[in-house]
Each structure stands twice: as structure tokens, then as C-alpha cells.
């Protein structure tokens, strides 16, 4: 290493020793805890409440190479009125799209819900900082009020935490007033120890939300990963009195799954987090299952796929 480069260990000494001092996570224990909470039985009025809460927490997402303005607009109108037959159905929290289609979403939703853009060379994050910042700024300029950035997993896995930290700080700055969600891509970090470390790193660097996954890597969100992130958020709140949000993204497809996440939130960080301001689901197909279940709960009979809209 040339002497001209700043050694991260020098510039981020405090951060590195803080991360090294975090308590470990026992994977078997964390999984057992998550599984136990998954056995909670949520019925009747509590289920209706949970389904509406879950709908209101959805970041309705399309992140395909084939996305078009038309597709985004259709999805955005569904985001506003998920169940056209039942106006009492809440809107989702946000639509989540690539930066170049933010304008299309904003056209439809106006100021009624949030528009989130994935940025920073999503999903791999493999680009220079300059490109990532430009990506971010363009999305914000186009009307995104939430930015879902990805961390540099390569840097994280080689222990270059300082680089990851600095990038988050820079992107946060580029966000301006837009909220920053930091995607850890836990499926590539692999261990729960890494998940806890990355969570803290992101929070310390200024994340408003920490988010599990891009949805492009398997496994995406899991209950144990989300549990560990919630624990980090809880501990961060204990230390700083600041509430950081958590977004579970990818792989959550059924109402039953979604309710398990709400239980996890409720019993790990408490119901202060049971608001779209602090917990989100990054999902596409989940919404329709929530709607089917909602119809079932209200009408008392099972609904079918033809009774919810595709988009």
C-alpha cells in the first residue's frame, strides 16, 4: 500500500474497534428465537389489524430490466388503491423503482405516497463512488424521496469497513432530504455476526433504514436476519434515542410470512416500530396475498386470484 493512501485503520480506528467489540450472534439460538416467534397464532381482529398494517408497510416494487414507464404507472396506481373494490384498503407505503423511472411513479402518486429509487449501481454496487453519487442525485432530482442504496459487500467482506462507511456517508449527503435505506444484502454477508456488524456500520454512517436485501440474491429476507437487524436497531435506540427503520425485502410472499415479521417487530423492538415510518416490506407479490386474506377476513369466504388485480 502506498504511503499516500489513507489507511482505513487509521481514519476509522474508533469504528473498527466498536465493530470488533460487538457481541457475537449464535446462529442456532437466533434461528430458534425467530422460529418460536413464528409460531404465534394471530387470529381474528388481530389478523385484520396486522394485514392492514402490513399493506401500509409495503414498498411495492418492480426492479426488472424490462420495466417501462407504463408498467411503473400501473403499479403506482395499484399502490394508491390496492383493492379498487374496497376503498377502505390502505395505500402501500411507497413504490420502489429504478432511478430512471422515478418520474413515472411520481406522476401517478403525486405526494400521496413515497417514491423510492434503488441507486448506487444497484444491485451489485460495483461502480466508482462518483457513479454511485451521480446515480443517487439523479434519482432525487427526478422526485425520489427515498433512496435504497447497496453497500459495497466486497469491501465489507475484506474488512474494509471504512470504505463502506465513507460511501454511506457520501450517499447520505447526496440524498439531501430524501430518506436513505441501506441495503446490506445479507445473503452475501452470510453470517449473522456480519449482519449485526453491517447494521451498526450503516446506522452509524447515517442510514435512516437498514434493509436486508436487493431481492436479487438468495436467500433474501429471513426471520433470523431480520431479528438480528431489529436487535441492532433496538440497541442503537437504547444508546442514541434515535429510531432507525428496518426493511425486510425479498422472498416474503404470503400474509402468514408478513404477520410473522410483524410479530418479530412487536416482540423485539416494540410497537413503536409498527408504523410504515419504521418498518417496511420490500415486495411485489406479497401485496396480492395480503389483499386475498383481507377479503377473506372481511367477507368470511376464500377469495381467488381473479379477485385481486395484476399489475
Amino acid at each position, binding site marked *: 500500500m502506498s504511503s499516500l493512501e489513507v489507511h482505513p485503520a487509521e481514519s476509522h480506528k474508533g469504528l473498527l474497534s466498536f465493530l470488533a467489540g460487538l457481541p457475537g450472534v*449464535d*446462529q*442456532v*439460538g437466533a*434461528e430458534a428465537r425467530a422460529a418460536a416467534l413464528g409460531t404465534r397464532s394471530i387470529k381474528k381482529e388481530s389478523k385484520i389489524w396486522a394485514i392492514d398494517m402490513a399493506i401500509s408497510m409495503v414498498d411495492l416494487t418492480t426492479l426488472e430490466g424490462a420495466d417501462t414507464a407504463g408498467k411503473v404507472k400501473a403499479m403506482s396506481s395499484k399502490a394508491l388503491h390496492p383493492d379498487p373494490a374496497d376503498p377502505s384498503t390502505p395505500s402501500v407505503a411507497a413504490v420502489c423503482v429504478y432511478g430512471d423511472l422515478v418520474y413515472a411513479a411520481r406522476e401517478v402518486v403525486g405526494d400521496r405516497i413515497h417514491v423510492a429509487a434503488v441507486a448506487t449501481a444497484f444491485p451489485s454496487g460495483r461502480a466508482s463512488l462518483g457513479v454511485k453519487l451521480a446515480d443517487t442525485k439523479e434519482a432525487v432530482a427526478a422526485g425520489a424521496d427515498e433512496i435504497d442504496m447497496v453497500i459495497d459487500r466486497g469491501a465489507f467482506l475484506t474488512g474494509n469497513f471504512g470504505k463502506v462507511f465513507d460511501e454511506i456517508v457520501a450517499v447520505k449527503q447526496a440524498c439531501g432530504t430524501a430518506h436513505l435505506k441501506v441495503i446490506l444484502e445479507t445473503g452475501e454477508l*452470510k453470517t449473522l455476526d456480519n449482519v449485526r456488524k453491517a447494521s451498526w456500520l450503516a446506522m452509524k454512517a447515517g442510514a435512516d433504514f437498514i434493509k436486508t436485501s436487493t431481492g436479487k440474491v438468495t436467500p433474501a429476507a429471513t426471520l433470523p436476519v431480520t431479528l438480528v437487524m431489529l436487535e441492532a436497531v433496538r440497541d442503537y435506540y437504547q444508546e442514541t434515542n434515535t429510531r432507525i427503520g428496518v426493511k425486510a425485502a425479498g422472498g416474503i410472499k404470503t400474509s402468514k410470512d408478513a404477520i410473522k415479521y410483524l410479530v418479530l417487530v412487536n416482540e423485539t423492538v416494540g410497537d413503536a416500530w409498527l408504523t410504515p415510518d419504521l418498518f417496511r416490506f420490500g415486495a411485489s407479490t406479497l401485496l396480492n396475498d395480503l389483499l386475498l386474506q383481507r377479503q377473506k377476513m372481511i367477507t368470511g369466504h376464500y377469495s381467488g386470484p381473479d379477485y385481486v388485480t395484476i399489475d
Partner: protein
Amino acid sequence: MIGNDRVGVRKTHKLFIGGAFPRSESGRTYEVINTRGEFLANIAKASRKDARDAVISARTGFNSWSKASAYNRGQVLYRIAEVMEGRKEQFINDIQDAEGTSNKKATTQTDQAIDRVVWYAGWADKYSQVLGNTNPVSGPFFNFSVPEPTGVVAAVAPQDSSLLGLISVIAPIIVSGNSVIVIASMNSPIPAITLSECLATSDVIAGNINILTGDPAEIMPSLASHLDVNALDLTGITDPELHASLEIEAAGSVKRVRSSPINPQWQVTPTLSRVRAFTEIKTVWHPMGIL
């Protein structure tokens, strides 16, 4: 006295506690005679207080002996056999005197006793492989069971088989890391005293093996009720009433009690039954994370 008949130097026979040879604190002795009724020796008659002292020594001995490596325990046992081998003639004489048996039989018993120690010496680093194991539990856990020494064991050596029976009681107790307080055969205690001299000059940790002479009926009740004794080996107790009363005392601290089958066959190669009787199975669980 005239001529060159030398006046012999007789030995004072003492207890063996904490690696030392004290007299009984009670000052008492009892006479031991041979099978022809001739006086052999005055033997220290241990009291309950001697037994109490022995428990303290045994506990101290346990604390270090149980930490010794299995390899080391094996070597210490083997060393006992080496020293016994050097005293073979004395053992043969002792057994002949004590049991009134032929030189041939006494020789056989001595050989078997020494070989028995060697047999157990070899077990020191193997018994836990045979008695322990890993357990395939259904779940992401690594689970294994190991035998560990029970602690302080109070034993009564058989009244006959003064050396082979004695050593066959002591060796399986100490091989796993226990300490023992053993009461020698009351009528034939001299081989046990010779053994204690072997132990004192081998590498046995002080207090690990304590040998008392005296009346088991007098000494054992206090050991059976002693809260710092973990187990009893009642091999040498043949009186059923005494046996039962000792079992009752043992319940006070939930002691493990081992008795012998009637007419134990000391010459037969043992099983691990005696080792098992004075070990505890410890089972340890640890999560096995999924990669």
C-alpha cells in the same frame, strides 16, 4: 541371646492418610494373628476421627488427581505396579502370613494383583472412550457424553483376598480420577500396609489413596453419613444388617453405593462395572451453526 541370631527390627504398622503414616489419633491398636494363632503385629485401629481426616485428605487429593491427564493417571498406576513388583517377596510373605496360604498361592495372588494394576493402568486413557460417546440428537447441536470421576469414595476391601481383592477395589476407583479411603481387611491388613508403603514411594498424589486399618463396623458409619463422601464401595461388608444401615446413612447425601456379588471371583479379569460405578456421565450440548 548368644550366637549370631540377630534381633529383628519389627515394624510399627500405621495408617496411610494424605501420603503420611500417622498412628491412629485414638492411640488404639489391635492384635493381628496368623492362621496358626501366632501374634503377627499390633495394627493401628482407626477411629472415626481418623476417617474424618482421611476424607479431608481425599478431597484435597481428588482436587488435583482428577485434573491429572488420563495419560498421567495411567503412568501413575503403572508406577504402582513397578514398585509392587520390587516388593513382590514381601507381599508373598505377607499374604502367606495373613491368609495361611501356600507360597505358590500367595505368589499367584501377588502376580495377579500386580497384573491387575497394570490392567487398570491401561484403562486410564481408554475407559472414557468406551463409556462415553457422541449423541446424535435431532437438532443443530453437537452433543457428547463423557464419564467423570464421582469424587471421594469410601471403600471396604474384601476380608479375604488381602492383596488382590484390595487392589481390585482401589484401582478401578482411582483410575478415573476419584480418591479413595479404603478400609483394609480387618484380619489380614498387613498386605495393605505394605501396599501403602509402595504407594508412598510411587507417584501417587498425597491423599488420593488413603488406607485405614481397623473395624469397618466402627469406621464406616461415619464415612457413610459424611456429606463430603460421594460414594461407597461396600465390597467387604458381608453382614447384611451393617450393609443395610450403611445404605441408609448413604441416603443422607444421595451417595452412590456399590456392592459386590456374593463370592467375588477376584482372579477373573473384571469388566468396566467397577469403573462405571464410580463415574458420572456428563453430557454437553453446543449449538452447531449452519453455514
